[in-house]
């Protein structure tokens, strides 16, 4: 996985000139419930060899046409259902007291395209995992328009989900990659983690690239869908992610039961580290040693972004995040007050980032801001290192796409990126110092 992330930069064939078109990403706020009352026709409906099931990239077409092949060969979404029946899936089911993961709503909701039977077309297969319509929406309303060769805007108007828009994509991806805290069948609780579910890191831009993406941002893409700016995708992803996390803290279903809060909202490595490894206790959270810390890596990234684009919001974000961490030692009610404030700030920042035209100077400022986190002398936690690296990868990708880097610079920076990924390859053996060293190396290779 990490190796895949590390090679993301090579995979990107973006050759975007400096476009300064403002993306129209108006209120795509509810990914899973919005506009998809259509019947899901199934992957087979898309996989024809003259549609999206070509063996190779099609030269004359506006899209690559080999999307199905990419998805079915290399994309984990394709295996999402199958893994439910594998050893780990069976173990998790057993630990949760479920007869079978492949029949349990709490698993199927994100490991398949879980539309009710009435919304499944004759060729629909649950076992296709997270198929085309899991992200692009049920095709019954738009397939006709789409096949007729209509413009992208016509497809959208007919109900195709606008995955090219960062905020909409963030909503869609995070509807599983964090889930919906209000829906018991769509939220990975700590109970499920304890039963064996793997940890779920996420960063929108990186995860788009490593899926791997089955689109190429080229001239024809840009003509039809507008430009894609990796930094914007990253920034919007952070804001939406943080908003969803705060939403989970505010969700009554996730309130503490008994002595403990819902632990999945906390920083995994805050507890899950061997205690015989002495680790530094950064004071960025303001919490005393031995405290359990809420996951805050998104907030830290968003703070770096806001510090450049909306300094007043950045200041408010940082003081409310500090208050939120402190509140965990006070009461749940205080936690909720602060979570509400942080969510408000995240939702204010989201449209600002969606419409901002990110410049070279912005990118440089973000990179400097992220690097500064590691050089401030305080220990960088694993979750921070992970988000910082993915953030830098998005920035690198954007700068590279702008065409301003020489081949030598790209080679040096790719090597430095790989060093960063390598420095946190395992949360068990992660140490602050190698990460900071890799960070300094990245700074050295970055153009000034």
């Amino acid at each position, binding site marked *: 996985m990490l190796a895949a992330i590390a090679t993301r930069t090579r995979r990107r064939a973006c050759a975007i000139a400096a476009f300064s078109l403002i993306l129209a990403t108006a209120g795509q706020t509810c990914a899973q419930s919005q506009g998809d009352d259509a019947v899901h026709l199934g992957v087979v409906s898309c996989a024809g060899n003259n549609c999206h099931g070509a063996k190779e990239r099609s030269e004359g077409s506006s899209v690559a046409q080999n999307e199905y092949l990419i998805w079915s060969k290399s994309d984990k979404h394709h295996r999402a259902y199958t893994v439910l029946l594998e050893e780990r899936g069976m173990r998790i089911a057993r*630990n949760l007291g479920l007869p079978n993961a492949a029949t349990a709503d709490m698993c199927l909701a994100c490991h398949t395209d879980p539309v009710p039977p009435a919304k499944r077309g004759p060729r629909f297969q649950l076992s296709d995992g997270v198929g085309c319509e899991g992200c692009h929406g049920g095709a019954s309303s738009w397939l006709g328009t789409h096949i007729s060769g209509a413009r992208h805007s016509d497809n959208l108007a007919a109900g195709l989900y606008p995955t090219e828009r960062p905020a909409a994509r963030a909503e869609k991806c995070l509807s599983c990659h964090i889930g919906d805290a209000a829906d018991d069948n769509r939220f990975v609780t700590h109970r*499920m983690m*304890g039963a064996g579910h793997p940890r779920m890191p996420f960063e929108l831009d990186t995860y788009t690239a490593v899926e791997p993406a089955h689109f190429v941002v080229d001239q024809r893409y840009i003509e039809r869908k507008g430009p894609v700016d990796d930094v914007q995708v990253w920034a919007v992803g952070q804001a939406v992610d943080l908003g969803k996390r705060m939403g989970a803290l505010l969700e009554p279903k996730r309130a503490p039961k*008994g002595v403990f809060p819902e632990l999945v909202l906390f920083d995994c490595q805050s507890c899950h580290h061997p205690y015989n490894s002495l680790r530094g*206790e950064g004071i960025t959270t303001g919490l005393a040693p031995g405290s359990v810390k809420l996951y805050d890596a998104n907030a830290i990234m968003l703070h770096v972004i806001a510090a450049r684009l909306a300094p007043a919001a950045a200041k408010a974000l940082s003081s409310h995040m500090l208050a939120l961490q402190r509140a965990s*030692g006070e009461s749940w009610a205080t936690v909720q007050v602060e979570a509400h404030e942080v969510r408000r700030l995240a939702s204010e920042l989201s449209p600002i980032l969606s419409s901002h035209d990110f410049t070279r100077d912005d990118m440089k400022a973000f990179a400097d801001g992220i690097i500064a986190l590691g050089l401030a002398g305080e220990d960088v936690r694993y979750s921070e290192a992970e988000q910082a690296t993915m953030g830098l990868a998005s920035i690198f990708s954007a700068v590279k796409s702008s065409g301003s880097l020489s081949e030598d610079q790209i080679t040096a920076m790719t090597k430095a990126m790989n060093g960063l990924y390598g420095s946190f390859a395992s949360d068990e053996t992660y140490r602050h110092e190698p990460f900071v060293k890799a960070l300094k190396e990245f700074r050295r290779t970055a153009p000034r």
Partner: protein
Amino acid sequence: MKGEVSVVKLHEIAIATFVTLMLTVAAWADPQAPDSGSKHLGVKSCSGDNCHGAVKPAEHSAVMQNEYLIWSQEVDNDRVDKHHRAYAVLSDERGIRIAHNLGLPDAVTAEICLNCHADNVPEARRGPRFEISDGVGCEACHGGAEKWLGVHLSGAGHKANLDAGLYPTEKPVARAEKCLFCHFGDPSDKSRFVTHLIMGAGHPRMGFELDTYTAAEPAHFTVGPKYIERKGPINDVQVWAVGQAISLIRRTDALLEPKNAPKGIQPELVLFDCQSCHHAVSQIRWQPRKSTGLAPGSLQLYDADAVMLRVIADRVAPTAAKVLSEHMLALHHATTVNWDTVVREATEVRRAAMELENLVSSHDFTGDDTKALAEGVVAIGLTDDDTDYSGAEQATMALGSIASAMRMSGYLTSGQTKVMIDALTGLNKSIADDATYQPGIFVTALKDFQKAIPQ
């Protein structure tokens, strides 16, 4: 070091005739009580070469006389009594780091560190030769010598020493109270209790089992005929059993202590099982435990002492065992309800543990008891009821104590002893490192031990 504890115990403790004398163990509720007001004269008052500072064990004396040397020797790092270094470590890298993380200027001047890393009696009670830097010296355990040193020097006999104020460390209950006063701490005293704050700042985890830790200290006494004549017999199984009961009582005290009630959504985590959280996220090892009934992903109260005590009670007091196990189950469940319920069930568990403390401290553990307890401890692991790291650790130390008692009582032939030592070595290896601990390896070692129990 820990990996060698049980083996060492078997080697070190000489075999004595097993005397089935009932031990009279009065309740020492306060390990400091016999010492109140007495001046501490300092290690130098004990370490004369014709007192306890001999270079070699004395042949004709009632005690070895080289106790000071055993406590203070630095020759063999594996055999050093850590009590001697307790003060010095406060200035080591780790001590400095912990102090820094806690915002303390210095660990060697902080009450919270000194109370257990030294014999921290008030200034007024320190004699002219007393040195705080001696760490946990003679009088920290044996009591301030001011009132009894004269009697002691006169050779008046052990009983006269006790009457004068010497602390009765030979009595399992008194020893448990004394050791646990630091090895668990006093939850009502914020300067005498290692909270999760202190753990988070870098303090190491504190494993403890009375009998094993007595042997591993290393003990500066030998239970021979002269010892038994003066102080009565020692039964390792009883020391273990009493230690478990009192450990559980202290643990429930901590749960009942208002200072340890949850703050916000942060409970006092030091009362929970360390490995319940502190394992790598990639290391998935949850399995259902019928003695906790908890769901996956739950934090679990530390209960290895309760599990061991239940094994002991199953043999010596089956009704009490049932009560204990019901309330422990309810206590685990209570953590998913609310803190009031935790407090209510902790009260019940405490009551059961108190009753069992009385029973086990006066019980005459027979050879058959010892064998049954060995089988009971093994069964816990083999029925998958507790193969958590903490459970495996306590089971291993328990089997070390049991093996030691079997050997001392002549229950084992020398051939059987060797097989059992090998099996203990395997068990110790399986728990040597919590980060890499694998329940399967522990269970295999447990099966080897099972085979070593004479039928």
